[in-house]
């Protein structure tokens, strides 16, 4: 279940379509992008600063800067690559400002060489986390794993090929020798089954500081 944090490739660049919708004035399209990437951005910033409140501030600032700069996004790079650079620069700038503040303790920072996503230990929990957040994350991971294990074989294979291997619906239909519509249905049913196990955990912890 543990694998590199590479998201599955979209057959169509749905991120770019969402960007275009946002630039055309639809802020809800940007909300979808925020929901999609906020966890990765939080973890990225969490590897640079120790204070969870700082993580939230910097993450918010990152998305606001990205929103303002969206008209300049040409789609030459992946949207997350572009967002990643904004997050790193925003975090660096925030850290520089905080280091000039004598009231902020050194314990709020980490060294800059920890910022690189590739150098981070993929599945280790980060310092801003409290024992409660660590426990909650482990519970969610355990719930997802057990739900995947309990899936019927064709659903398990479909969702694994999609989420872990990053195959498109068309490629999965070739591998599983079934129509694309069936692939789409199997992935959806797998997600529903997994979500049913995860949602109670999310609702219990809703409103708390993770």
């Amino acid at each position, binding site marked *: 279940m543990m694998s590199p944090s590479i998201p599955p490739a979209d057959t169509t660049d749905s991120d770019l379509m969402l960007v275009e919708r946002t630039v055309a004035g639809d*802020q809800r399209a*940007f909300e979808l992008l925020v929901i999609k990437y*906020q966890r990765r951005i939080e*973890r990225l910033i969490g590897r640079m600063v120790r204070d969870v409140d700082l993580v939230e501030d910097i993450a*918010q600032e990152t998305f606001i800067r990205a929103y303002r700069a969206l008209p300049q996004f040409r789609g030459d790079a992946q949207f997350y690559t572009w967002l990643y650079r904004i997050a790193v620069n925003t975090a660096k700038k925030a850290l520089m400002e905080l280091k000039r503040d004598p009231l902020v303790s050194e314990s709020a920072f980490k060294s800059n060489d920890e910022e690189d996503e590739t150098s981070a230990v993929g*599945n280790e929990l980060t310092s801003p986390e409290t024992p409660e957040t660590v426990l909650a994350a482990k519970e969610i991971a355990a719930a997802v794993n057990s739900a995947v294990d309990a899936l019927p074989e064709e659903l398990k294979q479909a969702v694994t090929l999609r*989420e872990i291997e990053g195959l498109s619906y068309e490629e999965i239909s070739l591998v599983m020798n079934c129509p694309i519509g069936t692939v789409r249905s199997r992935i959806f049913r797998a*997600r529903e089954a997994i979500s049913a196990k995860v949602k109670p955990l999310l609702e219990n912890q809703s409103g708390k500081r993770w």
Partner: protein
Amino acid sequence: MNSYRDETISALADGQLTGSDFESALEQAAKDPHALAQWETYHLVGDVMRQGAAGAPLLDSGFTSRLMLRLADEEPLRMPAPEPVTGLRAHEIDRPAANQESFYWRIVAGLTMVGLVCWAGLGSLRDKSDTEQAASQAVAVPEAVQTASNGSAMIRDPRLDEFLAAHRQAGGASALQMPSGFLRNATFQGTAR
């Protein structure tokens, strides 16, 4: 109906929708909080499947709503202004380039460099011709008879020429301390004599 809607959101999360399907799924996500929640859960499940506990959220679930509240105060986005259309092609527009200043300096620097290279090249050529001339004078073995420019034959003594060539250092010197060679007598045998 809800099942179909959620399946559409699932396909949207996988980037499998285009055109009107994409538009309608986006509309659903915009107006239906449940569809938005499904979008979030599907991405969360994917992140956790790939990264384990590190794919779980670090911050509380109110992050997005707080952010969207802040974004509501933002000014509407503006596309970058397009270049004015003048009917002229880009190379036909007569306006200074952005690097015009440095371009002039590059021309001056380039011409200066060309001048320096030419000067150095001419100097080396002059040195080379002087060296060759001196060498040819040193190794020239005179012939007994050479034809003068007026067609008459000039009588020369090869032994004398050999002797003079071997004792060039004993010859005269000019005011510039350059060897000027020997002044010698020549006998012409022509029709006039």
